[in-house]
């Protein structure tokens, strides 16, 4: 059955010769597709799951990083900083939120404190010139609920919080508005290159495109091995678990609290979310599975305890959610972006900064591209995303929203209807949650899950 497809019908997408096929609808793939569409290339995004954001981009900390702690001179740093700037430049036109919080790298011990100067020096080297060291008094004046053991900190005013799902949705929505297509339930399983174009096999049919950009995240190496015969990086998934506190917690904290990092990870962060909660996480656990981000009671309890150690006032506040995400890490630290033979660009190993860097990565990738561009574009369209940020006006405050369906997150019938229609409707229950937050609040669907299921019955298909 031909389902209405994002941008155009599946039939039309299959019959066409695309300039570029982007494989993988994570935040990076969405941003890359957008950039190609804005540059006038005919681009199609292929996603294996029923909806976009099914992989690493499903669960992260949602911090817009300045790059203060990234390796100096690295491609990662460059992409983060161009990505950061572009996000700020375009966000208002796409109606994407920003919660300006700043971050503090807090020292809790002598050992930590000894590292602060090095952290500050690196921040300055990375052009994050407003980073500065603050003493205990200033730290506690800024964050009075922080445990008194806090010693000192490096304050990074430019670190902010964003909506991790609306941002990529906005990128792909703008691409669609500019003539791109998005095919979901379309895992690329095989492909061949005839010297001029790729034929990519998916269960939904064959896609023909001049160039391929591999943005398959946690499956990037597998994809590349099966289509190119080899791959110069190896994905080593690294899990991060999180505990989310109820909204009352948000009053206890302004700044993103970062630990002094260790060799292996950035460590456990405690920060607000754009939706008005507080989260603590992520852990850093290597594992072989690429698709399973399972939760572990002991780790969750440890995270919870560490949050209470940093902010004792969290103790009486209930837990709203627990989740885990997988970082598409590789055997090395750096991004693995490069042009391969046969009109193939790989974007691999976008490990723990991809939400920030996606727009920068997209600029970098388009600069690497030497293929055709079908059309040049006039002033692009700017589709506006529904706002889910807690600090900005929400739909429930506007008349005519129908009804409030999810009481905890105050999600309206109108918002749910909107997410089930439009150019890229929700493809599965998770996609509906990410687009609306229905069921993501403190009761986790106690009151609304049956109602949401009834409204969306038979209407979720990628």
């Amino acid at each position, binding site marked *: 059955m031909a389902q209405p497809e994002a941008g155009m019908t599946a039939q039309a997408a299959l019959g066409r010769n695309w300039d570029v096929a982007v494989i993988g609808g994570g935040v990076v793939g969405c941003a890359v597709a957008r950039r190609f569409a804005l540059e006038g290339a005919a681009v199609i995004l292929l996603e294996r799951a029923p909806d976009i954001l099914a992989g690493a981009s499903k669960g992260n900390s949602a911090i817009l990083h300045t790059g203060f702690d990234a390796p100096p001179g690295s491609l990662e740093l460059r992409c983060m900083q161009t990505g950061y700037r572009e996000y700020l430049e375009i966000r208002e036109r796409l109606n994407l939120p920003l919660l300006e919080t700043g971050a503090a790298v807090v020292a809790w011990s002598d050992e930590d404190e000894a590292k602060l100067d090095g952290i500050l020096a690196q921040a300055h080297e990375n052009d994050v010139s407003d980073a500065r060291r603050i003493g205990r008094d200033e730290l506690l004046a800024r964050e009075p609920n922080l445990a008194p053991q806090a010693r000192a900190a490096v304050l990074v005013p430019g670190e902010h919080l964003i909506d991790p799902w609306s941002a990529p949705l906005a990128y792909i929505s703008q691409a669609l508005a500019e003539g791109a297509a998005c095919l979901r339930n379309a895992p690329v399983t095989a492909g061949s290159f005839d010297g001029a174009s790729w034929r990519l096999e998916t269960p939904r049919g064959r896609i023909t495109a001049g160039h391929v950009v591999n943005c398959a995240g946690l499956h990037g190496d597998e994809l590349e091995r099966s289509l190119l015969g080899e791959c110069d990086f190896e994905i080593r998934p690294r899990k991060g678990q999180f505990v989310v506190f109820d909204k009352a917690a948000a009053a206890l904290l302004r700044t993103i609290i970062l630990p002094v990092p260790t060799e292996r990870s950035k460590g456990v962060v405690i920060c607000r979310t754009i939706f008005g909660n507080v989260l603590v996480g992520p852990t850093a656990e290597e594992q072989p599975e690429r698709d399973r981000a399972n939760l572990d009671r002991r780790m969750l309890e440890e995270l919870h305890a560490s949050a209470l150690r940093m902010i004792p006032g969290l103790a009486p506040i*209930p837990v709203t959610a627990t989740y885990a995400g997988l970082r598409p890490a590789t055997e090395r630290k750096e991004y693995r972006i490069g042009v391969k033979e046969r009109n193939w660009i790989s974007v691999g190993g976008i490990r723990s900064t991809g939400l920030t860097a996606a727009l920068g990565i997209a600029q970098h990738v388009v600069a690497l591209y030497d293929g055709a561009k079908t059309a040049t574009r006039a002033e692009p369209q700017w589709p506006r995303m529904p706002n889910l940020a807690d600090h900005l006006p929400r739909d429930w405050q506007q*008349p005519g929203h129908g009804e*409030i369906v999810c009481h905890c997150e105050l999600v309206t019938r109108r918002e749910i209807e909107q997410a089930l229609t439009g150019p890229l409707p929700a493809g599965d229950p998770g996609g509906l949650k990410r687009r609306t937050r229905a069921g993501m609040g403190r009761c986790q669907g106690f009151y609304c*899950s049956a109602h949401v299921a*009834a409204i969306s*019955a038979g209407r979720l298909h990628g």
Partner: protein
Amino acid sequence: MAETSACDVAIIGGGPSGLAAAMALREAGVAQVVVLEREKQAGGIPRHCGHPPFGLREFGRILSGPRYAARLVETAERAGIDIRRQHTVVALHPGGSLDLATPDGTATLQARRVILATGVRETPRSARFIGGDRPQGVINTGALQAFTYLEKQRPFARPVIIGSELVAFSALLTCRKAGMQPVAMVEANDRVTAWSPYALAPRLFGVPLLLETELIEICGSGQVGRVRLRRDNTEVLLDCDGVILTGRFVPAAELVRSSHLALDVGSGGPVVDQHGRCSDAAYFATGNLLRPVETAGWSWREGRRVGAVVAQDLAGDLPAPDRVLSIERGAHVKLTVPQRLALPRLGTGLGDFIQLRASDKAGGMISISCGDRVIWRGWRNTLPERRILIPLADLALPEGADSIRVSIED
């Protein structure tokens, strides 16, 4: 522009307790009583408890939950109570001023008195720190009942039921009625939490009852596929397509938590005195918001009493107390309601007793002390989740004391 209106008493929540309070206020002659209910239908939790017994105390007959809820609503509306459906209270302000969300946008309401009656819900998977995957099909009893009774849907066919409080047996009945066959009922303790006759129910329905068994992990991508259980240090996998997490009730106290009102750590509800009066005297609370968890009949009766007290208060018959004595939780006491006594007057809204729950299995001897002096001792059934009552009239409250402590002896 937000619309502002005023009333004598605003009741937040149109469940058994809120509606009972409204009736009592009307009967006492209070003119403008408004019930604010966020759902399309009033009636509260019983709306989706498609089983008896409800209504014995209220209507002298046994009704199913939905019929009972409908009766409550009809009775209230016939008495001229203004039930405003799809009116969600989003914030409480000092002195009884409320922020509302309505289908027409935001509004405010100024009430002389407010009664909070927002009920309880069950603890979700997240707050229990249950490990494993996060597939579809992990829900509480409340959601299960909404699926089957309100939406006529079956979220799964072969669920496992976690927990053995009374509500777990409602889950069992709900499954049976809707054609779902539970694969097991799993309880971490060595006995069923509900009264023992219920322990027979699973066997009656051919559902294995697994005691001293812990849920370790939920497995499945997309839909639940199985659960990993631990019993006697051995792990077993149990195939199922859903998980019903029952009980572990918590008061729906978000409004209180984010307001100026004091919240009680033990009960999880607002701090109240024996009249149901909160830390801001314009606010009262009733029903299961006060504590996890009581029956509909109990909540209804509590609502009637608190409604009557609020009517007295509006008439100037509930003077501010001379002094307030706090009730502290000692050993093995999970919660007390109330948490303070307004003196000298002992007449009450919540009933002539202190309600108590035990936090763990302890001996049955309860003692109340004031400083080093024991002022009351008595035996009660102190199993967890059982209602324990101590008559207020039995307490010889010493002059000048500012607190008493309730403990269960080892």
